[in-house]
């Protein structure tokens, strides 16, 4: 049965059949697209290696959850829902778009299995999908152009506004939808006018709307619109395809790959160079990322995949306190660098230094590696590894802030950033004994025990933080654990040393600690320092199982080995409102959100509230380890901002489970003038205060 209107394949322009154009447009489009993609892939070929072809099951699962399932999108509700609408529409409409290309040559083409019933159902579905995308695009354009959410703004130093590009693309999408619907509606109206049987158009869809509007149109007009609709769609489709790799909409193509090849291990740091083992590091000419081509191909794919949505920077604590860092622009600047230095036409320009070029030193040192950006990114762009790689490059050039040089030198010589003597590492143990606390075994004195308490530097040497060490010892003793510490044999765990890019120093510390731990014969490790916890778990190899004290406490309480009682009287928690601050290296990097809360809730009568930013959206306190020495450029301190968040939640006590968080938050209390109104305490200190020793 012939349709009433002549299909695009059979119309002629100046005697040339439409099918010719239907072939020409895709051929030119695909050729151009292939050319552009080849240019885009060029730097990735020169890039550093990265082995991301393992763990297929995990990767497919990630694609299903994060790409197909758009799992991260609803974290920003309006934008997220709009994106899901557009994304779902695209998935559905992609089939229609493919078949339309072929219909331009063969009018009766159906995708396999799409003839008859399923095709009919699909047609209804895709008409609704198109309509849904159209509405979503309209709202999105309104948001972009009128509402202008703050996170889309481009600060002057980062270049021009990106609204134009966004609106243009939304316009392209709408053009696709309208032209396709017109093509469909005109065919239906033509058939109706000719008295031919038609498939009913789904009501309230774009095509349905056009059918109503065109029901009185003449055949000539209908034919014109029908043909125009087709070719406008065809042209727009291939234009869009070629336009995608030119800007932030590249993510439409790359995101599925970016998610598939995502970093699967939280908290871990990439090796200096994939495929080069630790003992071969000395043979490397250069360390880290100094020029664009030093990035791994995956990191370049990250840059291509950034949709410029601004969620990373919106969550970034460094950005929030006015440090010169916005993760979004780490990606955008690198992407623009790639586009500019690997242009579509003309020779490639490579080898320019990034620091002093697109990035500044302060920008790269400003990151606390808290992971808020990575947690938020809908397309799993990673930042910490890039920061670490850029720092490795700077360290390799000797380009390290003066404020960090002393602690690094001290770490090299003394194994702690303070330059204190090794023999004083266990002095807090003596102080504890003097206070009537338990005797702590020290392995360097020849003692042995089942459990090793890894103390780490800040807890060993800092007067205030030694209290966490003492509380940990009291809790372990109370629970009847046979434990000890390494004493002078313990070196700094090196979590920050590694994340500051001083890989060789980290390797040295790791080797010394690993040897001491194996020598000690301990069967398990417990630590109250999430930074040590993270690096012992993620960066060290082959150690006995490592546990954070919150896990231990939660279990000991559940098993009744530690009994807790209510606080009595003012100053002992009566009338206090507690809130728990998730340390980055315990929460986001190790997913320990529940154990500390269980411990808190086990204290009878304890009143606890949550801050708006909690768990995986926790707001970094300012960073640990070497961050205590670094002097950032900033308007405010992160700790101070965090204290204000706690006050806003109505808390009077901030409980945390990390020595550095305690340092930063106590500092934040002082600098925000909240002394007397808010106090901070470590989880294990709080547990000790409530331990019911009598039972």
């Amino acid at each position, binding site marked *: 049965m012939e349709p009433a209107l002549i299909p695009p394949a059979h119309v002629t322009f100046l005697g040339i059949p439409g099918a010719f154009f239907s072939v020409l447009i895709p051929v030119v489009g695909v050729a151009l697209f292939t050319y552009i993609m080849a240019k885009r892939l060029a730097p990735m070929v020169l890039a550093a290696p990265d082995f991301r072809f393992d763990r297929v099951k995990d990767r497919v699962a990630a694609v299903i959850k994060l790409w197909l399932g758009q799992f991260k999108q609803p974290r920003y509700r309006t934008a997220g829902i709009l994106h899901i609408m557009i994304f779902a529409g695209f998935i559905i409409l992609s089939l229609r778009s493919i078949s339309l290309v072929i219909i331009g040559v063969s009018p009766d083409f159906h995708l396999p299995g799409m003839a008859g019933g399923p095709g009919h159902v699909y047609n209804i579905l895709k008409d609704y999908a198109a309509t849904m995308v159209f509405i979503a695009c309209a709202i999105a354009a309104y948001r972009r152009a009128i509402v202008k959410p703050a996170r889309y703004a481009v600060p002057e130093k980062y270049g021009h506004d990106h609204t134009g590009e966004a609106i243009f693309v939304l316009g392209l999408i709408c053009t696709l939808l309208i032209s396709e619907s017109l093509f469909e509606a005109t065919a239906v109206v033509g058939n109706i006018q000719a008295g031919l049987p038609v498939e009913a158009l789904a009501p309230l869809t774009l095509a349905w709307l056009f059918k109503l509007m065109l029901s009185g149109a003449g055949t000539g007009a209908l034919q014109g619109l029908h043909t125009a609709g087709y070719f406008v769609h065809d042209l727009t489709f291939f234009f869009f395809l070629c336009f995608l790799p030119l800007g932030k909409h590249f993510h439409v193509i790359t995101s599925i790959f970016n998610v598939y090849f995502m970093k699967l291990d939280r908290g871990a740091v990439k090796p200096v160079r994939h495929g080069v083992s630790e003992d071969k*590091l*000395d043979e490397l000419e250069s*360390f880290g990322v100094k020029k664009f081509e030093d990035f791994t191909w995956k990191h370049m794919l990250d840059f291509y995949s950034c949709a410029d949505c601004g969620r990373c920077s919106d969550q970034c604590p460094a950005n929030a306190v006015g440090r010169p860092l916005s993760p979004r622009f780490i990606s955008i600047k690198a992407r623009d660098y790639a586009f500019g230095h690997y242009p579509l036409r003309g020779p490639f320009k490579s080898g320019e230094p990034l620091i002093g070029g697109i990035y500044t030193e302060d920008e790269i040192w400003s990151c606390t590696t808290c992971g808020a950006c990575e947690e938020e990114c809908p397309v799993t762009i990673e930042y910490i590894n890039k920061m670490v790689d850029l720092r490795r490059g700077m*360290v*390799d*050039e*000797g*380009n*390290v802030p*003066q404020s*960090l*040089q*002393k602690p*690094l*030198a*001290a770490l*090299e*010589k*003394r194994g702690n950033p*303070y*330059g*204190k*003597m*090794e*023999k004083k590492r266990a002095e807090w143990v003596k102080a504890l004994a003097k206070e009537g606390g338990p005797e702590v075994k020290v392995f360097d004195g020849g003692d042995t025990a089942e459990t090793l308490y890894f103390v780490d530097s800040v807890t060993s040497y800092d007067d205030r933080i030694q209290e966490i060490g003492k509380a940990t010892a009291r809790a372990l003793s109370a629970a009847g654990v046979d434990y000890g510490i390494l004493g002078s044999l313990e070196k700094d765990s090196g979590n920050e040393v590694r994340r500051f890019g*001083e*890989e*060789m*120093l980290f390797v*040295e510390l790791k080797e010394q600690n690993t040897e001491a731990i194996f020598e000690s014969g301990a069967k398990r490790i417990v630590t109250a320092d999430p930074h040590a916890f993270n690096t012992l778990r993620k960066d060290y190899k082959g150690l006995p199982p490592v546990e954070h004290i919150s896990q231990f406490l939660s279990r000991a309480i559940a098993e009744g080995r530690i009994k807790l009682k209510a606080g009595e009287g003012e100053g002992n928690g009566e009338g206090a409102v507690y809130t728990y601050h998730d340390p980055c290296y315990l929460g986001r990097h190790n997913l320990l959100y529940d154990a500390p809360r269980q411990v808190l809730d086990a204290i009878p009568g304890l009143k606890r509230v949550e801050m708006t930013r909690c768990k995986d959206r926790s707001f970094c306190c300012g960073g640990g380890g070497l961050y205590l020495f670094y002097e950032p450029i900033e308007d405010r301190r992160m700790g101070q901002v965090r204290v204000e968040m706690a006050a806003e939640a109505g808390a009077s006590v901030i409980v945390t489970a990390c020595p550095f968080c305690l340092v930063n938050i106590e500092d934040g209390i002082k600098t925000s003038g909240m002394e007397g109104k808010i106090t901070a305490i470590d989880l294990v200190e709080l547990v000790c205060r409530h331990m019911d020793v009598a039972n």
Partner: protein
Amino acid sequence: MEILVCVKRVPDTSENEIEINSSGSDIQRDDLVYSVNEWDNYAVEEAIQIRDNVGGSVTVVTVGDDDAEEVLRREMAMGADKGVLLKDDAFEGSDGRGVAAIIKGEVEKGNYDLILTGAQADDGAGQVGGMLAAMLDMPFASLVNRIDVVDDKKINVGREIAGGNQEMNEMSLPCVLSIQTGINEPRYVGIRGIRKVASVEIPVKGAADLGVDAAVIGAANARVKRLDYFVPPAGEGAEMLEGGVDEIIEKLIDMLKSKGGIK
């Protein structure tokens, strides 16, 4: 420009108290770590920056024992081109004049335009640079906190003087300068940098190689000798306020008031 920088290995005492051994003959060295003298490190950085700007080479030299080699390597990892260790049993116990005479031997073997030392060392007296210059009859400036190279015959040199002021001088080359901290921001040297230069050969030169006048070196010829170490007697010292914080503050406020410290 050919630059020689004199460096010294010293105990790193920044964060730990220095204690004296029981006989008072030396400080307690068991738990000490050593590093390059801080001032010398600035001097090496300055030399490297000058070389990078105008060309030439940087040689670091030290008078010491085998352990002293470690600081040469560190400075070479920073970017110095060569290291020279001046070592001889005859050097032991030399005073400042002796050390200057030893280094003079090395200077005369080379063809240096600029010789830098640190302005002082934690365990030293800030003397070798000035002595060396006098022995070589070269111009000298101490406490240098700025160097501007004018041409291959002349440099302009800033000195740190009182009041935070800077005294600018024009110096003809070759000359000797002692470098004050803060003149630059020395670059970081990590383990990796040191490993890279670990196998570079460092020539060792003795008294005979240098042609040093035996009459000024060694303990026997030292005119200035350290006899012992001691902790200075407490003297009168301050009246220490003790007790609770409130009590201390109360006493302190009374004192400040009576002395006109609170307006």
